[in-house]
Structure formats: C-alpha cells, structure tokens
C-alpha cells in the first residue's frame, strides 16, 4: 500500500497551502478519524470550458490522505473542469475496485499508486478526502458563476 510515490508526496506535498485568489472554499472532514482538508478552487475562462487555474489546500491527516491531495492537485491544476472530473471519476472507480481494477495510467498518472489502498476499505475514505473536497468546491464555484451570470 505504501508505494514510494505515496511516501514521496506525503513527505513533500505539492501545491500545499491555501492561496488567493479563489472562487470557492470548502472544508471536508472524515468523521471516523477527524482528518480534515480545507480546499480552494480558482477557475479561469479559457475557451469553451472553465479551467482550474489553481487548487490549493491544507490537509491534516494520514499519509494516504495527504499524498492523495498532493497527487490530485498536481494532476488537475491547469486542466479543464471536464478533464479533471474524468480523472476524478476514474480515481473513484479505482478506489471502489477492491484491488481488482486495471488502472489506466494514461488517465490517472501518479494516482495509480493508490491501487493498493482499494484493498483496505477503512482507508479508501482517506484517499478520497481531497478529491471529494475538490468536487464539492468546484461545484460550488461553478454554481456561483451561474448565479453571477444570471444576476
């Protein structure tokens, strides 16, 4: 489970810290252990679809949850919301696979390292904490844009 790539991200997390500007901020908690992540999303318009200009976060938790947030931020910053959502869906599928999936490294990049986590049901929530926070924050940011456009 503890792939070197995971330990590496845990020791030296990428894109950590909360940054300005941001369009939405959320805080997610894993109620079974109290782990927390505060995450901000900043969107910018570029072409047909909004792009993730920045994803910044502060994570308080185990190696799996911290490394997962780091890998996520590194993969999705600069991607369109649609592209990031596709990666997120693929990651969720991997986590629900109980170790039976054949993850697509082209889509998941470093996140394939979390394949082993899917064999430990108690740890899946740890790996998903950052991703769920990102999804929530993005939905919030998009919602606010829509409200803003209507007003």
């Amino acid at each position: 489970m503890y792939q070197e790539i995971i330990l590496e991200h845990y020791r030296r997390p990428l894109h950590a810290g909360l940054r300005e500007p941001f369009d939405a901020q959320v805080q997610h908690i894993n109620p079974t252990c109290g782990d927390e992540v505060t995450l901000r999303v900043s969107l910018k318009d570029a072409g047909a679809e909004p792009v993730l200009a920045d994803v910044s976060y502060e994570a308080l938790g185990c190696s799996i949850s911290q490394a997962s947030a780091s890998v996520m931020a590194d993969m999705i910053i600069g991607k369109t919301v649609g592209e990031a959502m596709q990666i997120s869906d693929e990651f969720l599928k991997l986590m629900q696979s109980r170790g039976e999936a054949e993850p697509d490294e082209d889509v998941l990049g470093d996140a394939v390292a979390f394949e082993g986590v899917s064999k430990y049901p108690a740890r899946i929530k740890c790996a998903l904490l950052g991703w769920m926070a990102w999804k929530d924050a993005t939905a919030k940011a998009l919602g606010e844009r829509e409200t803003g456009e209507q007003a």
Partner: protein
Amino acid sequence: MSAAGEVTTAAGGMRHRDAFDVETIRSDFPILGRAVRGGRHLIYLDSGATSHKPRQVLDAERDFYTTHNAAAHRGAHLLGEEATDAYEGARARVAAFLHAEPGEIVFTKSATEAVNLVAYAMSNAGTFGPQASRFSVGPGDEVLVTESEHHANLVPWQQLCERTGATLRWFGVTEDGRLDLANIDELINDRTKIVAVTHQSNVTGVVPPVAQIAAAAHARGALVLADGAQSVPHRPVDVTALGVDFLVFSGHKMLGPSGVGVLWGRRELLETMPPFIFGGSMIEVVRMEGSTFLPPPDRFEAGVPAAAQAVGLGAACDYLDALGMDNVAAHEEALTVHALEALAGIEGLRILGPLDTSERGGAVSFVLDGIHPHDVGQVLDELGIAVRTGHHCAWPLHRALHAQSSTRATFYVYNTHDEVDALADGIRQAQKFFGTV
C-alpha cells in the same frame, strides 16, 4: 510463556505474574486461533471497541436458538415459557453480577441506547404527570457532563438540552486527562438536573471519582448516570456501593454478544421514570383513546426482546465471575503497567492520560511524532496487531489533550505480556518505516 503464566519481558527483564492462566483462557476463544495478514497470529488489542467471545457464550446463544427459541413474554406454549425463563434468568444473572435486583435491570440494545433511554425519558416527563416531575427538564435547568465523555454519553445530553431549552455544562480535563474538579461547587448547583459521567475513559483509562461527584450531585437533588461501558467488563462493580442512580454498559465489550446492553437504575426511580420506546410488551392497557404502561423493567423494553443475546450476556457474566473480577482487574493492571513502561521508552511517543495505574484502567492511547495514527495502525495491522485509530468517539477529549487523533491499545482477559512487547516493537517498526527516528 510458562504454564504458571509467568513471563519475563524483553523491555526491562521485569517479571509479571498473571492472575490466572492466560493460555487456558485463550483456548476458549476460537477467533484467537485464526491467522491474519500474511498468515500472522492475531494480536488483538482492541477489546475497548469490542471483545471477543468465548465458546461458552457462543454455546449459550446457540443453545437458546436450538432448543428454546420463542418470543419471550408471549405465546401460550412450552417454548414461549422456556424462552421467557431463559430471558428472565439472564436478567437475574446480570443483576447478580452487579449486586443489583433483577427488577432494576433493563435490557437495551446497547449502552448507547441506555443513555438515550434516560435522556428521552427526561424529555418525555412533561406528559407523564406530577409523579414524573423528578425527571422534567426545561429552560433554566442544567445538564452536567464531562469533556472526557464518549460521544454516546455526550450527544444524547446535548440533544436533550436542545429539545428542552436546558443548558449543557461540563467538567474540563487536566493535562493528563483527569477530570478538573476545581469548580465542582459551581458546576453542581440547584439547577443541575442530572450529571452524566464516565466510569472509565475509553481513551485515557482515567477512572473519575464518581462517588464524590455523585455525593455532590445528590446533595443538590440531581440525578447521576455513570457510563460503565469501559468499567463493568474490567473490574468488580457493585452498584449498591457506587452511589449513582443509573449505570449503563454494553454486552459486547464484556465477552457477550452484540445487540444487548444494560441500563441499571434505582428501583424507586425506574418506578416513576417515563418510558422512551413505545409498543408491545411495555403496555398495561391499550385503548384507542390512550394507553397505560407496565411497571419497570418491562415498561422500558418494548418489542420482542433480544433473548438469545441476553442469555449470551448471562453466560459472559458466568465466565467472568468464574475468573473472578478481582483477577481480571489485576491481570489488566499488570498489562497496563507493562504497556506504559514499554511505550514510555519509545522516543517521540506521547501517552494521552496518566502515566501510572492509579485510578486508571487498561486503555493506552498515544500519539507519535510525525506519524498519523492511521499509518501507525496500518503498519501494526500488517504485523497482525489490531489497534484502534482515530478519535475513538471522544473528539472533545482529543481536542482538550491537543491531539487530532490517536492510536489506542486496550487489554482484556486473553491478552499476554508478549503481545504488549509486540506492540512496542511494532511501533518502532512504524517509526523506522516512516523515517521519523
């Protein structure tokens, strides 16, 4: 380990004498023979969450189903009678375990439900006439808890206050996790309706001075409920000497089945306490316009009771009494002393709670510099060692002790000194793996 149950620990060459032959006890627990990750032996240090069951308990439950099964308190047939006898026999057995009267034992599904029963009974008091006034709570009244409670003995009281407009107050804790009683005279006052306090912390093992708190509460006319989930399984508890009005605990933490818990209450209080869950078995007369209710304990046991589970709990009481609860307590104290010593020698490890066993039971929670409890637990699990990680349903206590979460080892009758050493070794391996030392 020698047949006499005497071991030499790796740590300091100290000798521990067990209060009973642990190997014989272990042979009663089938699950302890199974292999876990990588074919390793199971080292189970999570009995504070739930204990394992000896075959005597499993046999008693199975025997109920295979020979007497019927809905207790119903049915004009032989099996119905036998099931009722078995269920009421279990009630008497649990009562004897606590030095209580059978009529003072209410079976619930858990300790959690037992706390909720009292909390909801109190908010139901308004509709149960003047005789229930002792239990009524409203604006201006106070409910007193402690910062060290398990969520099960905290959230139901928060909610009682939300429903009734009463005010929740609490004892804080000191740096070593003991209750801070400095302001007891202010906290327990004429507005206090009930004091709910743990009889042993599930995180720090702290045993608060429940008798002292109960005496102060009674002097002001308040009720007192003790959460015995972590005490009743581990040491002798005599409710007549404890000084409280209510004691709750669960069966599954004391070698019994899950799905059965106990509320013990003073008879004279149960007589006037309003019911919580309504339905069959608890009524006296039912008319379309309204109903009346049975005396306790039946008034608090709506629905077909969990008879097999109660019977299993009775068998667990037999098992524990045969060992002798004084011996159980002595065995766990020796393990706790050993664990506190072994863990204190680990660099970068901080124990939450007192460092000696004075007024302290066998829960040893700790934090490690630079390693999250989940990761400690994962490394230990790979070694076959089962511990609890997280906040152990005591989030406010963790905050008070400046810990985001912790790793916890808890001990019971089947644990050995070798297992304590394995824990200490495992922690060191985790430190090596994560490169923190």
